[in-house]
């Protein structure tokens, strides 16, 4: 069984804004270059052997400044970055014809062309990055399309011990505490209560449907649950002294199509993170006797994560 949650929540969050600092950097670069062109067009034209084209240099300077301000002030820098690329092409087209042997400043022209080519590359890269970021942002919820997930983790304990610990209702309550309030209601049944944002909550009772000591436990929600789901945990020996491979599977979507996916999305639950985190919590609890946490620690602002 495979999982399709390639894009985690975190991945989306961290990549969305990443290229904006580039855009800001380019904005300041534009303004700096533009000011130089506007304030010292003569010197620049002389340096490149473009005598008599001071007016053009000054106009290009104004273009740079406008573009720079646009980059810095705009909420969506992408069009301004592409504006820069267009300007780069114009600059290259203007400077390139002066790369002739007759020009005494040929060396300077060469240098300027190399610099222009470099900055064009940077602009194009930035534009492409921004474009990618936008494309990603348009489909941020792909991960909720799938609600069937399996994760494995190796734990340094024998399978028999891990099986026993998982059956202990207290252990399950601690391991799942980041997701649901779980309590034993007898007969091998557990009651699950998930508190979502804005007062939304879901409840169901799960019953054990398969129990092979030291090997596997499988459970299913009873009819009438808010969220139809099933899950299992398998214990298999790991090589050498590595303990046991524990595989946790959650399926929130066995029968009712996309409904569960939508419910999970409302509750801000990402099944792949849920399973991975539950396994890590279980591992820490059985290996060390506690689950690592920073909730309730000192900080100048409350930690809400």
């Amino acid at each position, binding site marked *: 069984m495979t999982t399709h949650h390639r894009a*985690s929540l975190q991945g989306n969050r961290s990549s969305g804004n990443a290229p904006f600092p580039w855009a800001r950097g380019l904005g300041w670069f534009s303004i700096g270059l533009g000011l130089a062109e506007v304030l010292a067009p003569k010197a620049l034209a002389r340096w490149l052997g473009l005598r008599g084209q001071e007016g053009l240099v000054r106009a290009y300077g104004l273009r740079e400044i406008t573009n720079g301000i646009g980059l810095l002030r705009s909420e969506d820098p992408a069009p301004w970055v592409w504006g820069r690329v267009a300007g780069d092409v114009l600059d290259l087209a203007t400077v390139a014809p002066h790369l002739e042997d007759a020009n005494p400043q040929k060396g300077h022209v060469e240098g300027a062309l190399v610099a222009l080519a470099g900055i064009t590359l940077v602009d194009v890269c930035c534009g492409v990055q921004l474009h990618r970021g936008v494309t990603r942002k348009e489909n941020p919820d792909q991960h909720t399309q799938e609600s069937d997930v399996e994760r494995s983790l190796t734990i340094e304990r024998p399978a028999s011990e891990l099986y026993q610990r998982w059956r202990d209702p207290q252990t399950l309550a601690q391991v799942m505490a980041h997701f649901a309030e779980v309590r034993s209601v007898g007969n091998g049944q557990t009651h699950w209560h998930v508190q979502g944002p804005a007062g939304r909550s879901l409840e169901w009772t799960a019953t054990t449907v398969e129990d092979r000591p030291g090997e596997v436990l499988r459970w299913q929600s009873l009819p009438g649950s808010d969220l139809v789901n099933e899950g299992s945990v398998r214990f298999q020996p790991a090589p050498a002294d590595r*303990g046991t491979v524990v595989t946790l599977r959650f399926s929130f979507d066995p029968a009712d199509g996309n409904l569960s996916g939508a419910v999970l999305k409302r509750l801000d639950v990402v099944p792949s993170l849920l399973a*991975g985190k539950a396994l890590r919590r279980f591992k820490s609890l059985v290996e*060390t006797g506690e689950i*690592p946490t920073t909730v309730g620690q000192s900080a100048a602002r409350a930690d809400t994560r």
Partner: protein
Amino acid sequence: MRALCWNGVNDLRVETVPDPTIINPHDAILRVSLSTTCGSDLHLIDGYIPTMKAGDIIGHEFMGEIVEVGPAVKKVQRGDRVVVPSFITCGQCWYCQHDLYSLCDNTHPKPELQEPLFGYPTAGIYGYTHAFGGYAGAHAQYVRVPHADVDCFQVPEGLPDEQVLFLSDAAPTGYMGADFCRIQPGNVVAVWGCGGVGLMAQQSAFLLGAERVIAMDRLPERLTMARDHVGSETIDYSQVDNVPAVLKEMTGGRGPDACIDAVGMEAHGTGLQYAYDRTKQVLRMHTDRGQALREAIVACRKGGTLSILGVYGVMDKFPIGVIMNKGMTVRTAQQHGQAYLPRLLAHAAKGELNPSYLATHRFSLEDGPRGYDVFKHKKDGCVRAVFAP
């Protein structure tokens, strides 16, 4: 209590925060006696390492006295004077049992922040971003120490605080870096950087049997320290054209047997390469200025060892082809302090290791922001600023 808190890029403030409490059964609460700045803190302060949150207490190199222990703490007790390595470790998992403590499997409360980038979560660390666990740091009057039995090391009587403080991070990091070099008789070890970690790496190389140690920096006072306190030969890299060529001459054309990078992502340097790195870093196009590391790779002898202690992000322009063709061994890690602390405390007790000279500047905790300013800009010959709450 009072604590030094990160509030944004280059914005540190001393604030009143709630006292720490026992949260997990193996926790202890320490009254901090001394804490110190580390070069790696500057990456957070300058904003090159993400996932800090406004209000986070920083600081990961410290010592103190235990004032409270959780119900499952057995070995250490109230009143113990202890030094604590920067990484929080459980002592139980496969990594801890193989002395790879900073890779501990059981102390990262937010692995989902780190797994997308690293593939697997590392151990948590005090005061060093939420990607590294988000634990409250030690520039404070009190600090919560999880897994106290594993992570608190009792200080032998008679050793003053200043001598022990740096056994929290600078000394074990440097010692590990030298240990990575598998030093043989006659070996020459070159060390980039004469900050706290670099000086400790140099001293450790001698403790582990190096014939000669050659140290690089650009600050005269630090080069003097390397010569006077450690016995290293030194190169002021800002005064030579080509560091690898100088090293080659100094080693009879063989090259250093091992090179230790104790610099990291905000390396200073010279020339075009430095301008390139600096520009890209300012534009946030890459995280690292890697001149020291690239130089170490070129300078090292064929088949030698590159030991990386500097903190890096995801560097581009990394000359892996040079490493491959020269058949080099690369060793690197965040410090596995718990594996080295007993040895280091023994060296300290015998008088073979006394890093107290690193403590060039002392401040009250209330002066924390000024302490970091002096440290960051290396004002007045500052190597390390030490805070006494």
